[in-house]
């Protein structure tokens, strides 16, 4: 393993920087998932036919957005969004600009997961809210979210892992990150030990995230 030790000695700083970039991409896109994806998923759930606040137009637009973003092959979405990215950031290169397209995916993925979790809530719960005279905000805050919280936390774990996977291709637009590091210094320089080591680091991150999400969700779940 002298080869790996040597590689790490030479690339250690780059590896840490790449991890930092990946961390940035995940934190920003997860924030987008919670701030925008959660309300979007809630909106689609509430406005569906037979829902608490049926509204065909709102449901159709929300659902369409989620479907379109989710059905885009990610790399093509990145390319597709280049003009918008330029408009927002003034550049299409670098970690923040690359994160922009990741945020779209994060919002769409999490919105769909949120909607599915809400659909699994006992339909008696929204009925109780209605017959108790709850307003729409009260129904959301006091009935639906408390029932859904363990599922929402667990879904955020799944989203994190998917986003980590998506983020690895953002090297194409200069996004950097751990995936780009593995390709650039491992694959392209034929330094396979370094590449495998990097993959092992990614694996470890996934396992840690999964385990934290699972434990947190179990602790919150009293069913």
């Amino acid at each position: 393993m002298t080869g790996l030790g040597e590689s790490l000695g030479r690339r250690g700083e780059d590896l840490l920087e790449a991890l930092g970039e990946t961390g940035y991409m995940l934190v920003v896109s997860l924030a987008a998932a919670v701030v925008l994806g959660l309300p979007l998923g809630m909106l689609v759930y509430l406005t569906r036919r037979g829902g608490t606040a049926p509204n065909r137009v709102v449901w159709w637009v929300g659902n369409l957005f989620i479907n379109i973003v989710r059905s885009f092959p990610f790399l093509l979405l990145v390319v597709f969004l280049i003009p918008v990215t330029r408009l927002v950031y003034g550049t299409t290169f670098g970690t923040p600009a690359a994160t922009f397209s990741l945020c779209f995916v994060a919002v769409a993925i999490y919105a769909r997961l949120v909607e599915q979790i809400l659909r699994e809530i006992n339909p008696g719960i929204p009925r109780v809210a209605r017959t108790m005279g709850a307003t729409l905000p009260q129904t959301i805050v006091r009935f639906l979210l408390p029932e859904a919280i363990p599922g929402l936390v667990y879904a955020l774990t799944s989203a994190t892992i998917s986003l980590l996977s998506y983020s690895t291709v953002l090297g194409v637009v200069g996004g950097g990150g751990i995936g780009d590091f593995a390709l650039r210094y491992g694959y392209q320089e034929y330094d396979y030990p370094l590449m495998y080591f990097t993959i092992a680091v990614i694996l470890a991150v996934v396992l840690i995230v999964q385990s934290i999400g699972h434990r947190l969700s179990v602790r919150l779940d009293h069913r």
Partner: protein
Amino acid sequence: MPPTDDPITLSGVGVTYSGGARALVDIDLAVTSGEIFGVIGESGAGKSTLLSLLTAEVGATAGTVRVLGHDPAGLSRAALRGLRRRIGVVFQGVHLLANRTVRQNVALALDLRGPRGRVPASERRGAVDDMLGFVGLAGREDAYPSQLSGGQRQRVGIARALVARPDILLCDEPTSSLDATTTDGVLTLLREARDRFGTTVVVVTHDLTVVRRICDRVALFADGRLREILSVEPDAGFAEETYLDRARRELGA
């Protein structure tokens, strides 16, 4: 129709669903204040529709509905919420929030009141704990619903429905998932609720035992029509009977 003090009056009420199915046809009835009124019939008789009519989840397509002096169909959304807060509902499946404690579940009914109706937190907690004592769940305030038995869960459901002191308590098959002894306890509780708070109680059920045990009057439904209203002599002695005594009596041993 002349105005009355009856909490619930229906005159000539019909409900036809959009598919054309007639769930209720020409119903006339008045539930008087403080009585326990049973609604019985087989599946498809119109019991559920009647209940949904009283909670204003379904609107009448014919006739007049008056609940606590209002026609639910004619109310603004805010006024409808206000009316619903004066009606407690006990569901067959109870439907408690799984991730909230017993105390939090019961407190919900008080939490929903607007700023004007808001009760101070300490008073609210007192009211919730009193109600939990009334339903026989003192000491279980911090338990989660999954830690309770079916009968205890239904008691939480009753406490939640009663804590805001509603004028009407609607019960939808409140005991159909409970065993006989637990059923007796829940039925006794419903009668005590009426006796203590003066709440008008409507019990929708297919179980004749429920009617015999607690109802003052009972409406018989079949095929969406009200066939008859009978007066019932409540059977006062049942609560003392144990499961084994009851088995001996019913099995004739």
